[in-house]
């Protein structure tokens, strides 16, 4: 069972990484609007790229 001394710290680092990634996503506003993006993927029309399409934070 000595392998636990390696595996558990490994698990802990994964845990910290997951938390860091989640915090990063929250900070970037990924969780602010959980409804629009699901529809936006259907809506974004690929026919006519327009000027000024530099986009907002969600583009």
């Amino acid at each position, binding site marked *: 069972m000595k392998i636990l001394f390696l595996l558990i710290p490994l698990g802990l680092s994964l845990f910290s990484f997951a938390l860091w990634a*989640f915090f990063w996503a*929250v900070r970037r506003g990924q969780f*602010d*609007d959980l409804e*629009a993006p699901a529809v936006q993927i259907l*809506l974004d029309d690929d026919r006519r790229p327009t*000027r*000024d399409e*530099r986009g907002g934070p969600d583009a």
Partner: protein
Amino acid sequence: MVVSTPPACFHCGGPVPRDSPCAVRVAGVSRPVCCSGCEAAVHLVLAQGLERYYEFRSGSGALPPRPGRDWSSFDREASLRRFTHLRTDGERELSLQVDGLHCAACGWLIENSLRRLSGISAVHVSAGTGRAELRYQPGRVALSRVLERIDALGFQPHPLSFSSSGPDGAAERRDALKRLAVAGFGMMEVMTYSVALYAGAMQGIAPDIEQLLRFVSLVVATPVALYSARPFYDGAWRALRARTLGMDVPVALSIGSAYLWSVVAVLRGSGAVYFDSVVMFTFFLGLGRFAEMTLRHRAGLQQDAFARMLPDSVLRIVGEGAERVLPEELVAGDRVRVLAGERIAADGEVLTGATEVDESLLTGESAPQVRGPHDALIAGSLNLSGVVEMRVLRVGQDSTLAAISRLLEHARASRPRFVALSDRAASWFIGAVLVFAAAVGLHWLHTDPARAFPCVLAVLVVTCPCALSLAAPAALASATTRLARAGLLVTGGRALERLARADRIVFDKTGTLTRGRPRLQSVRALSARADPERCRAIAAALERHSEHPLARAFALIAPAPGLRQVQLAVGRGLAGELDGVRYRLGRSDFVHEFCHDAAASRLPGMERGRSDCVEILLGDEQGPLAQFLLSDSLREDAPDTLAALGMLGVTPVIASGDVPGIVTLVARRLGVREAHAALRPADKVALVRTLQAAGHGVAMVGDGINDAPVLAAADVSIAIGSGTELAKVSAELILPGEALAPLIDGVETARRMRRIIRQNLAWAILYNATAVPIAAAGWLSPWMAAAGMSLSSLLVVINAMRLLGDGATRTPSLGLGAAPVQAARA
């Protein structure tokens, strides 16, 4: 002659006049639209290649645009300073609240349409909250142009003062999400280690591995106990400082002490650890709080609703000329010109001119009031017909609007006994738990000091375990989800419990039981020369030039073309010329005096004005042509809803600011026995207080600003969605649509929820009653407590989930196959 159910407007979803000349071709199919405003909006959408909006939006559409609104005051320096923030790179940013925004597709439409303007650097619209964040280059595009574009699409933009927009819930939400994530991840980790430790306790475990697992649990539980559980400590501290015992007190006490005890146990290398209880407790409670917060944010409550009752700009008279200024720039003594259709910005008196004003939102009086020189005008009321010059007497905090706002605050602060009672009961319970825990501790200190703390902790954990604290929130979350599907939004946590108790439901009349909009009931020809259809068309053409509420009854009729020389007679009617004939439309004396033949004009076929109807005549120089009867129609589902509520034992009561005749008539038609008329806002509050004093649980349904104080005073407040922002701010339940019927489901669900909460509490108490003595006696080993706690919580949650059942599970349909427009509007 009643207009049959008309087709829905392609853009706004409103009814379309039968013979509307307006129609649009979308994807080769001709679609009806209700007015030229909507027609223009559709063309704007199509011209930008954004027609897929119509495919993906859910429910009915935007608001019908009001053409010709002047946004130029937003380009003034004072406006820019107030609403925008100048960034260091020379761009300006601002936040807007957008009315009419109800689905993700609407947000997409606004975003994409604005991006097609040059000079817009960034735009983000959040459909959930109705907020738009915007960054633009002042040199390349004017703010007024941006607002105009949003307006033209059929949405109402309201720029938010840069200072007041503040934290809009996004920050709070992010914070809560992070805390919840830490607790959730932490729970997964710690539970894994705990299972290993329990297994070890039964089967034996190597001491070094056990120490490792305990130490790792400590590492993971630390951020949970210190970061995720922080709101509970804050809440407990606030409660203690206010000298009360809130639910947060034992929660904070158990989490804090369990954590500290376990830390000591790990460091000493002996003794039980309770990290699993700490993280699970924190996570489940956090989850409940998060759900509640989401509901609160979703309701999109606007605190500056009062400010929005005022116009965005006013025309101040300076010397010979006039300038557009912000209402804030006004001071007492200023002279202001108010055009027809504008809101009045400050309390004052009329100097010259005469007009009719709609004060219904402030006083509940539905009929327009005629105002001439020296008459008083109230800030927030709507100028309907004439142009007046007024002198400003009171602004800002001194105005009537601000006084109502203070009345609201007062009513809200003194919410009635039921809340206080349940809070007091909770305080007693918590106090009892704390005393019992202390007694157990004292007992063990005398007999076996080493076991004192584990036992006290066991008592604390066991008496306030997930089951007990989840009993209500889990049922509440299920009930709110179910009701949201049924069309009733719950924003206040305790509102449903009180709705279950309510046995009186007080309705405002105008805008609540009725639509708040007049409808054409009948047209009667008064002369052989008159053709009713033609008369309708002429009347509609004339009424197009009026902002009067009655004019809206004619909005569904296609106007006769070619009308010229329209003149407005304040409080009396309209005159105009069509094909060489001069017509008058309005009150009967106004029309009669036109044809100089009052005696002969009363024809036998003419129906006498009924008490619930308003009579309007159309006439030419030879005599009256037609009589129109208008009345405010009841909501279609009002009779059935009130009858069903009566069956459920919730007696409807009508409290209206309107005149007694109309109120009695409506009450009779709805079968309501108790109806009060001519009530001012303060009278309505008094009525609710009287009912409460008689021991009734009172629910209040209202819509107007004048209802805000009484909504705050009632046990449960319900606002109807077509009402004002302000009513929604003070309401705990919101009917977002036009229908009243969800109230029935609301009452039923609230009662089922109460039943389920009772079952849950009974179970939790049974569990506690058996577990507490065992815990106090010191026979409860950690794994037993944890297993018991988890099982009992699971049972409670599953029981609560039953509330979700038997309602059709419908996910918001935005799919490709969805009907393009007008999916759900009964």
